[in-house]
C-alpha cells in the first residue's frame, strides 16, 4: 500500500467517522440517560441533510455559496433541535419505561418522515451546489485530498470538543453524565432529571442534523432514506463505543469509519460493511459493555 493511498483512505475514513459520530453521540446519550432506543434518530439526520439541500438550492438570493452554506448549517441545526424537542415532548415522553411502544412510535416516525420528505420533495437523489472551497484539493504526502473531507473532519472534531465541554463544564452536562450512570440516584438528590430528557433529545437532534449536513457533503447528495441507512451504522458505533459514553462513541466511530474504508478498498466494495458487523459481534462477545462503556446497574 502506497503512502498516498494510506493517507487518502485515512482522511476519508476519518471524515466518515465524523458523520457517524455526530449521529451516534446523541443516540448514545438518549439511550444511556433515558433507556430509549430512538429509531427516529435517522430522521433528525435526514432533516439536517434536506435543510442543507433546501437552503443551497432555494436561497439563490445569497449569491456567495460559502455564506449560503453557513446559513444552511444554521437552518439544519435549528431544524434538528426542533425535531428532537418535538419528538421527546409530544411522542416519547408519555411512554418512558414502555420500551415496545417507544420502539413502535419512533420507528413509525422514522417511516412517516421518509414518506413525508419523499412525497413532498421527491424520492430521487438530490444534489446541490457546494462552495468553491469544498471542491478544491490539497496534496498531503502525495495524496490529493478533497478539502471537503478535511472540513468534515474539522467540524466533527470541533463539535466533539463542544459536546465534551458541555458535558464536563456545565451543570446540565453534569446531571446528564450522572443520569446516564444512575438516573434514580440523581432523582433521589432532588434533581428533576426529566428536564434533562428534553435537552438531550434536542441536543441529539442538533448533532444528528449537523451530521446530516456533513453527510450530504460527504456523499454528494441526499435521499429520503439517507438517515435510515446510516442509522444502522450509528447503532453499531453506539454499541461498540459503549452506551452513554461520548468518548467511546468517538473512538468507535473512528474504528468503524476506517475499517469500512480500508476493507472496502482492499477486499472489495461491501466487504467493509460486513467487517463492521463482525466487529460488532466481537464486541458483544468479548466486551458487551462496549469499549468505554460501564456495566449497567
Amino acid at each position: 500500500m502506497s503512502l498516498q493511498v494510506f493517507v487518502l483512505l485515512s482522511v476519508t475514513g476519518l471524515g466518515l467517522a465524523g458523520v457517524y459520530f455526530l449521529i451516534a453521540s446523541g443516540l448514545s446519550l438518549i439511550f444511556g440517560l433515558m433507556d430509549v432506543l430512538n429509531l427516529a434518530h435517522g430522521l433528525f439526520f435526514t432533516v439536517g441533510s434536506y435543510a442543507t439541500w433546501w437552503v443551497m438550492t432555494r436561497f439563490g438570493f445569497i449569491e456567495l455559496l460559502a455564506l449560503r452554506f453557513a446559513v444552511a448549517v444554521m437552518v439544519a441545526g435549528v431544524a434538528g433541535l426542533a425535531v428532537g424537542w418535538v419528538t421527546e415532548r409530544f411522542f416519547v415522553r408519555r411512554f418512558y419505561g414502555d420500551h415496545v411502544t417507544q420502539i413502535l412510535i419512533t420507528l413509525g416516525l422514522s417511516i412517516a418522515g421518509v414518506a413525508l420528505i419523499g412525497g413532498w420533495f421527491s424520492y430521487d437523489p438530490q444534489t446541490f451546489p457546494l462552495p468553491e472551497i469544498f471542491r478544491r484539493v490539497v496534496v498531503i504526502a502525495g495524496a490529493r485530498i478533497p478539502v471537503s473531507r478535511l472540513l468534515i473532519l474539522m467540524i466533527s472534531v470541533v463539535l466533539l470538543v463542544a459536546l465534551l465541554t458541555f458535558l464536563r463544564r456545565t451543570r446540565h452536562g453534569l446531571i446528564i453524565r450522572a443520569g446516564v450512570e444512575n438516573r434514580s440516584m440523581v432523582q433521589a438528590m432532588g434533581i428533576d432529571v426529566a428536564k434533562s430528557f428534553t435537552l438531550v433529545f434536542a441536543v441529539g437532534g442538533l448533532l444528528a442534523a449537523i451530521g446530516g449536513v456533513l453527510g450530504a457533503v460527504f456523499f454528494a447528495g441526499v435521499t429520503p432514506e439517507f438517515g435510515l441507512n446510516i442509522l444502522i451504522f450509528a447503532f453499531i458505533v453506539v454499541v461498540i463505543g459503549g452506551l452513554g459514553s461520548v468518548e467511546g462513541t468517538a473512538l468507535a466511530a473512528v474504528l468503524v469509519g476506517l475499517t469500512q474504508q480500508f476493507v472496502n478498498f482492499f477486499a472489495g466494495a461491501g466487504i467493509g460493511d460486513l467487517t463492521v458487523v463482525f466487529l460488532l459481534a466481537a464486541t458483544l462477545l468479548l466486551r458487551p459493555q462496549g469499549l468505554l462503556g460501564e456495566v449497567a446497574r
Partner: protein
Amino acid sequence: MEVREDAASHAAPGGAAGGPADGRSAPLLRVEGLHVHRGEAHILHGLDFEVAPNQVTALLGRNGVGKTTTLLSLLGLLPSSGRIEFDGTEIGELPTHQRVQRGLAYVPEDREVFTQLTVEENLRLAMQWPEAAERLPTVHELFPELEKRAAQKAGSLSGGQQQMLALGRALLHPAKLLLIDEPTKGLAPIIITEVVAALSRATADATVLLVEQNLRVAEELATDAVVLDEGQVAWQGPMDRLLTDESLKQSLLGVGRSRTDDGGANVDRDPEDGS
C-alpha cells in the same frame, strides 16, 4: 401480626396516645398502611410508624423484612400505597425529586456514588441548595479525605471513602429527615468506627431514619427503634428498652447467635432473604 410497643413513650400512629398529647413533639414522618409489591411479591403489608423530630430512629429487623424497601418507597423510588405524611403534608403522590426538595435526603445502601464522576463533581451535583455552600466546609471537616481526593474518580475510592462521599453528599442538603441505609455495610471495623463517629457528629441535631444491621452501631446512634418482621411493624419504642430486654431482642432480631469482628451484635440474617 400483633404490634408490640413501649406504650410509655410511643403509640401506633393515629392511636390515642400518639402525637403531641403524649408529651413528645408531633412526628416529622407519619406512615400509615404502607403496602409495597415488587413483582408478584407483597413486601410491605401495611406499615404504620412515626419518626419523631430531632431523634435518630433505627429501622431494624432481619434481612429481607423490607427495611430498604421502606426507605425506597418513602422516597418514591418504588411504587407504594398507603399514607406518607412528612412535615404535615401528604407526599405519597409526589415524584422522588419533589419529596427530596421538601426535605428528605438519602444515603443508599450501596453508596451509589457516581463512579465516573470525580469526588468534587459528586459533591457539586448536590450543591443545588442555597445552604450547600455553607455546609461544604463542615462536610470537608467531617471527611477530610473528600477534600484531599477531590479530583479522584469516585469509582476508584475505597468502600469507606465512598461511604463518606455518599454521606457528605447527603449532608449538603439542608434536609429535615435523613434516610440512611446501612452506612456500615461491608466496611472494615476501623472504618466503621470512623464513619460512626462522623455520623454521630453530623446527626447530633438531625432527624434520621437509620437502617442498620449492626446493633452496636444502631445503639450508639439511635434513640428510638422500629422493628420490622415479615413486612409489618413488630415493635416500636425507645432503643434502650429494646436493648435491655433480652427476650425481646432474641424474639424480634434473633441476636446473640452471631457476632461481628468488632464485637457488634448483628441482627440475625436469614440466608433465604434479600432486601
